[in-house]
């Protein structure tokens, strides 16, 4: 089974599991859907690579939508904070409900890491022959981190860039401080680590 088939199969199995079984993390249905949508858009990027001047507007629009959606993949990893709703006091013995929910959340996060690697591989294979490929990848990683910061702390969604653009920009600018820069830096480092550990540079095209 190839990587795409695994990603798709795991997505549908995961969503089915969340629908059928009782879990505290049912919000993962929406979060995983958005992450999966970003991955599927990444798979379509080669089709939207502009081959003539006439194709540039549509291609640019498609790439912008993809860039706006892409932080949703990394965002799922930050959902790990929701583990705190359980006590995990092992001195009280094994509480099955806690560990079932642990399994549900961690499998979603692992899946999101897999999606993230596939998405970066796809981008890397597209820009491989461009002179500034490493700079573009770096910019993408930093944009993803900023996207996660905006979504997690300012509670904005990609769509607010269209519905409330001025409010979004002004809130982002006013919230930038040492702490937010640290967060963005750590998220970027996390992405570098994932990319370095899990991507195989010899087989980077899907």
């Amino acid at each position, binding site marked *: 089974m190839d990587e795409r088939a695994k990603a798709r199969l795991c997505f549908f199995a995961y969503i089915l599991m969340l629908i059928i079984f009782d879990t505290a993390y049912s919000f993962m249905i929406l979060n995983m859907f958005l992450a999966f949508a970003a991955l599927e858009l990444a798979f*379509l990027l080669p*089709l939207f690579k502009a081959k003539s001047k006439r*194709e540039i507007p549509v291609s640019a629009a*498609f790439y912008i*939508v993809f860039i706006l959606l892409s932080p949703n993949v990394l965002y799922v990893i930050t959902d790990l904070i929701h583990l705190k709703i359980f006590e995990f006091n092992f001195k009280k013995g094994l509480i099955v409900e806690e560990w079932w929910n642990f399994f549900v959340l961690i499998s979603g996060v692992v899946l999101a890491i897999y999606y993230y690697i596939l998405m970066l591989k796809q981008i890397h*294979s597209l820009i491989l022959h461009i002179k500034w490929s490493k700079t573009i990848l770096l910019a993408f990683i930093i944009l993803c981190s900023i996207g996660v910061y905006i979504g997690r702390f300012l509670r904005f969604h990609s*769509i607010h860039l269209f519905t409330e653009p001025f409010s979004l920009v002004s809130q982002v600018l006013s919230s930038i401080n040492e702490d937010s820069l640290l967060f963005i830096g750590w998220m970027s480092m996390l992405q570098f680590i994932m990319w370095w550990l899990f991507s195989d540079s010899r087989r980077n*095209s899907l």
Partner: protein
Amino acid sequence: MNDTHTWLFTVWMITIGVVMLFTQVYVSRLLYRYEKSVLWGCIGFILLFGLNMYVYQIRKLEKRAGYAFERLDPQARKVWRRVYVLILIQYLLFFVFFGWLSSPG
């Protein structure tokens, strides 16, 4: 719900409806033409929200065109780009619609 809100809601519903209907008919005709199969024509019309293209992409298009769509001739490439843009427009319309519905204003 005031009159302006009701009017805007109706306009949104009609716009989304028209775009969806157009996309379904377009995809259905396309799949029927490419596959010469009534089944694919029906799949193209019945499955909503881009699921028709998604099923076709997994079952046929990726195998035929390659993962990077490298085996598509320019004409087919143009057609598939158009189809995906139509589906994306559907999603963006829904996205903005629900964003508008859920915004407090």
